[in-house]
C-alpha cells in the first residue's frame, strides 16, 4: 500500500477530534451513511437493473432491527443481520422471477416500484406495532450503549466511516470480478450473453443480493443513528427515487460517484435550508428537481463520470 493512501486513511479518522461543530459532524455522518446506501444501489443500478424498490430494502432493514429491539429486546447486533436476511429473501423472491421471465427496463422499474409501495403501506397498515405513518423511536438506553447500538455522535462517526469504507470495498471487488464482466455483457445483450454461456439469472441475483443486503444494513444504521423511523422517509417511492437520483447525479460508474452524489444532495439541501430558512419551504427541493432533470438530459454519467472522461481525454 502506498504511503499516500495510509495518510489519507488516517486523515479520515480525524474529524471528531477537529474543532468542528456538532452540526457539521452530524452532516458528515449523514453523508457517509447515505453514501453507503447510494453505493449499494449502484452495485446493481450500473448494470441497467434500475431498481425503484430500494426503499423496500431500506425499510425492511431498519424496521426489522428497531421492531425486534422494541418488542423483544433483541439487540440490534442480532436484529440487523435478521433485517438483512429478510431484505435479501424479498429481493430473491422478486429478483428470481424477474430474471427468469426477462422483466427488464420499464417493467423492472415498475415491479420494484410496486414492491417498495407494498413495504411502505404494510408498515403503515401495521400501525399497532410499527406506529404507522407517525413513525417510531427505538427504545433508548443511556448513551453509548454497545448492546443497543446507540452511540454518541463521536462514536457514530467511526461507525459511519467504517460502513462507507466497506461499501466502497465491496463496490471495488464487484468492479474487478468476473460478475462485472458478465453483467456488462448481460446489460448489453442478454440473449447473446446467455448464448456464450453466462448464467444470466445467477449473475443478476448475485448483484441483487449484494445490493439489497448492503441497503438493508444502511437502513438499519440510519435508523439507529437518527433514532427515528418513518415509513415515508425510510420506505416507499420517495426514498427510492432519492436513492436513484443521488446515485445518478454523482455518477454510478465511478467508485466515488455515489459519495459525491450524497455530498451534493445533502450539503445542497442543508445549504439551501439555511439560506432560505422556513420562509420558502420547498425551495431547496425545487432547485434539486430542476438539477436532476438537467443532469439526466445533459450528463447521464453524473459528475464523476464527466470528470473521469475529461481526465482520460487529457491523458490520451
Amino acid at each position, binding site marked *: 500500500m502506498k504511503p499516500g493512501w495510509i495518510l489519507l486513511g488516517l486523515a479520515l479518522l480525524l474529524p471528531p477530534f477537529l474543532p468542528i461543530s456538532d452540526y457539521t459532524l452530524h452532516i458528515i455522518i449523514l453523508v457517509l451513511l447515505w453514501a453507503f446506501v447510494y453505493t449499494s444501489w449502484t452495485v446493481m443500478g450500473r448494470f*441497467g437493473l*434500475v431498481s425503484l424498490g430500494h426503499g423496500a430494502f431500506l425499510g425492511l432493514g431498519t424496521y426489522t432491527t428497531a421492531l425486534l429491539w422494541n418488542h423483544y429486546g433483541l439487540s440490534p447486533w442480532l436484529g440487523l443481520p435478521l433485517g438483512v436476511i429478510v431484505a435479501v429473501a424479498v429481493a430473491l423472491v*422478486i429478483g428470481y*422471477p*424477474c430474471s427468469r*421471465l426477462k*422483466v427488464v*427496463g*420499464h*417493467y423492472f*422499474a*415498475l*415491479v420494484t*416500484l*410496486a*414492491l417498495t*409501495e*407494498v413495504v411502505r*403501506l*404494510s408498515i*403503515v*397498515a401495521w400501525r399497532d406495532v410499527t406506529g404507522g405513518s407517525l413513525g417510531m423511536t427505538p427504545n433508548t438506553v443511556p448513551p453509548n450503549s454497545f448492546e443497543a447500538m446507540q452511540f454518541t455522535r463521536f462514536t457514530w462517526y467511526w461507525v459511519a466511516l467504517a460502513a462507507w469504507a466497506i461499501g466502497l470495498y465491496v463496490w471495488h471487488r464487484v468492479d474487478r470480478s468476473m460478475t462485472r464482466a458478465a453483467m456488462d455483457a448481460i446489460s448489453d445483450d442478454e440473449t447473446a450473453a446467455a448464448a456464450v454461456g453466462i448464467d444470466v439469472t445467477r449473475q443478476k441475483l448475485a448483484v441483487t443480493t449484494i445490493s439489497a443486503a448492503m441497503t438493508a444494513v444502511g437502513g438499519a444504521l440510519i435508523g439507529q443513528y437518527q433514532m427515528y423511523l418513518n415509513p415515508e422517509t425510510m420506505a*416507499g*417511492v*420517495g426514498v427510492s*427515487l432519492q436513492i*436513484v*437520483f443521488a446515485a*445518478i447525479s454523482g455518477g454510478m460508474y465511478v467508485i466515488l460517484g455515489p459519495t459525491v452524489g450524497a455530498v451534493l444532495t445533502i450539503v445542497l439541501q442543508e445549504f439551501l435550508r439555511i439560506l432560505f430558512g422556513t420562509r*420558502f*419551504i*420547498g*425551495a*431547496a*427541493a*425545487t432547485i*434539486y*428537481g*430542476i*438539477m*436532476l*432533470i438537467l*443532469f*439526466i*438530459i445533459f450528463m*447521464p454519467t453524473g459528475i464523476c463520470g464527466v470528470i473521469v472522461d475529461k481526465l482520460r481525454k487529457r491523458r490520451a
Partner: protein
Amino acid sequence: MDIFLVEAIVNGILLGGILALLALGLNLIFGVIDVVWIAYAELVMCGMYAIYWLYAVHGVPLPIAAPIAIVFVAILGVLVHKLIISPILGSAPINQLLATGGLLFFLQSFATLLFGADFRNIGLRLPIVEVGELFVSFARLLAFGVALLGMLGLWLFLKRTYVGTAIRAIAQDREIMVLMGVDPSRVYLITSALGGGLAGLASALLVLQYDVHPFIGLSFGPITFMICVLGGLGSMVGGFIAAFIMSQIISVGGFYTSIELSYVLAFLLFIVMIFVRPQGLFGVKS
C-alpha cells in the same frame, strides 16, 4: 347483502371511472411515445391547484375554471415533451423515466413553495344522492359520468379523425410510419397534449372529491402505472377493465381490511400478474 358492502362496490365502480381515465392518458403516452411519465399524477396535482387557485382564490366560476385547467395541463404536457422527453428520446428508455422522476420532485416542491404543504379544499359541497338505502356522493357520480364521456370522446377522436389514425398507427409500428411520410415529432406533441388534457380533466373531477396537497400525486400515481401495465400497453379496453378490477380490490378490500392493506393487495396482484402475463390482460404478445 350488507348495505355497506354494496356501497363499497358502488364506490369502487365510481373510483374505477377516474382511474380508467388516468390510465388511459398514461397508456396513450406509454403506447405512442414509449415513455413512462412517472410525474403523470403530479400533472393532475397541478390541474387541481389551478382550479383551486382560480375558483377558491379568485372566484372564477367552476365551468370556466375547469376548461382553463384542462388547457393548462395540456400545455404542461406539451412542455414536458418538448423540454424533457424530446432531447433524450434517443437515449435509454429508463433515462426518460428518470428525467420525469426529476420533474416529479420539481412539481411537488414547487407546489409546496407556492401553496405550502397544507391540504386545500375548494370549499364546494355537492349533495349526497339517496338511492333506496344507498348514499352516493353526487361528486363521484358526476366524476364517473364525465370520465366515461371523456374516454368516449378520446375513442372517437382516435377512431374517426385523421390525426387519431396517425396516432394509432405510430403506436403499432414506429419505424414504418416514418417511411410512410408521417412526422412522428408532430404526432408525439399532439399525443402529449392529449395526455396532458386527460390529466387536466381528471384533476377537475378529483378536486370535487379530494383536498389538494403537494403530495397527492403519490396516492394515485403508482396505482395508475400498475393499471396501465396490467391492462396491456396500447390496449384501451384492457386498461379500462384493469381500472375497474383494481378499484374493486381497493374499495372492497378496504371494506374488509384497511385501505392500506387493500393497496398492498392491489400491488401484489400487479407483481404476480407481471410474472404470469407480462403482456397484460388484453395485450398482444410481441
